[in-house]
């Protein structure tokens, strides 16, 4: 791609005690790209996510997003610049209604209450959550909760949406539904998506590019087709999946 990258990391390193969770991680992500981050358990995917979104500070390295250096910023400040993430757990507000959940997501991206309500309703529709609009989030089926947490993040109008294992723990129907929605976002091309996922087939189908992590290091990067042929990747990750 020729455009300037939206996100650039260089030499990103994070240690916990003596253990290096992420070592010398460098990558680029371009506007409206869908980038997958995969790797076996303990590969450092979640740590990388936390480093990018400000929930962890790196020991070394830099993160640049849309022209600003963000690796010393707080999560809320990073989010306001347009890099917004979800979590694997507790990524929504259980006791609030679906509408209230998304309204909270739209706090920073809108100026007036009318505008906020309009954006929230449009987002709820986009994520096919209209039938539950006044239900408490905690009472939703599992798959819909996952969609809701994405809707909350999406209501911030992010430039880059980071999804932390959006498919984990979902059954086949639910997985299909979430994938359908991500594809819809993808066809809009309004926002770039970075996602960490265990479901290899989903990653291969959706992503423009994939980065493979193993033991805290990037071992491969490329198109899904290239990744699936990479011997190192097969050894580290796909091998034990088959």
């Amino acid at each position: 791609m020729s455009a300037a990258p939206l996100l650039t990391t260089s030499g990103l390193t994070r240690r916990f005690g003596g253990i290096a969770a992420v070592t010398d991680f460098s990558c680029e992500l371009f506007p409206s790209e869908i980038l997958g981050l995969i790797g076996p358990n303990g590969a450092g995917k979640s740590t990388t996510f936390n480093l990018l979104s400000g929930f962890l500070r790196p020991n070394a390295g830099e993160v640049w997003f849309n022209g600003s250096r963000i690796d010393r910023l707080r999560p809320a400040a990073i989010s306001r610049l347009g890099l917004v993430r979800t979590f694997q757990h507790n990524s929504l507000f259980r006791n609030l209604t679906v509408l209230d959940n998304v309204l909270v997501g739209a706090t920073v991206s809108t100026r007036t209450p009318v505008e906020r309500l309009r954006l929230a309703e449009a987002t709820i529709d986009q994520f096919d959550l209209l039938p539950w609009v006044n239900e408490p989030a905690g009472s939703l089926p599992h798959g819909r909760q996952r969609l809701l947490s994405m809707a909350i993040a999406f209501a911030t109008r992010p430039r880059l949406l980071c999804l932390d294992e959006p498919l984990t723990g979902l059954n086949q129907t639910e997985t299909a539904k979430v994938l359908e929605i991500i594809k819809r976002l993808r066809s809009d091309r309004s926002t770039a998506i970075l996602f960490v996922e265990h479901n290899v087939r989903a990653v291969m189908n959706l992503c423009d590019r994939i980065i493979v992590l193993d033991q805290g290091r990037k071992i491969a990067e490329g198109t899904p087709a290239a990744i699936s042929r990479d011997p190192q990747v097969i050894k580290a990750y796909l091998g034990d999946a088959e």
Partner: protein
Amino acid sequence: MSRDKFYFTLAGALFIAALATCLLVRNPYFVQVIVWMALNVILALGLRFMLLVGEVNLGVGGFFGLGAYTAGFCVVQYGIPALPAIALGTLVAGLASLPFGYITLRVSGHYFMLISFALTEVLRLVYTQSKTLGGNSGMVGIIPNIPAFPALVVVMTGLTFLVLVYCERSHFGRVIRAIADSEAMVRAVGISVPNTKLMCLLISSLVAGLGGSMFALANTVIAPGDFGFLLPVFALAYVKIGGQSHPVGAVLGTVVMSVLAQLVIGLGAQDTLLFGAAIVLTMLFMPEGFIGLMDRVLARANSRGTAR
């Protein structure tokens, strides 16, 4: 009848009854009880507002005392009229909460509860050591210069209630309830959690300061012992017994427990036992408080209504 309509009607009825007692009943004892109840309602509402964001703010006792001492000092030392003295007491409590919150709201949960508890106790000890504030014997002669002061207290309580309900149901209220559910997700959507909590503490403390200021003038006498840690602990009990999920719960809990306390006043210091028992029984048999109990009754009544 809808849930909200039922509870607000109930609160409205209590408000009118309290106001009528203050204006029409000549027995000063009844009026004094009403005023004491109203002040406790304010304290409980202030404490509940921080509970919305998920923090137990036992500092409301300290800010209540700060309001009381500020208003008392204004009246006794400078002869400032009641209303500006109350305004000053409220303001001082609110302003004092900002540096306190800025430092302490970095911690949450049990830690914040303990620090806020310490604040209340430290302030009480400061009053006992200050000669200007009357030391252990406190301050006397804090007499309001306006008639019908008890009625004013009740009206201010009603206004406080309305303002807090408005805050809770505004977008700000939505964000603070979201923080109670998932702090991380609130940060992830770009909202500063410490600033929001600080704002919450400010509101809670302004309310406590207002209650304290009016307490000083209603009582005309204050002493450090009035502002110990039991004050916020009782307020917490009122909120829990009344039920936390609706603002009217704090009102109900306070009113019911205050009436009970008056009935067993002969027991002296043992009324604390009554509160302990009430809390244990509430936790066991109605964990959602009176509100939870009435919610169930309302749901049954409504389902019967639709079945017909």
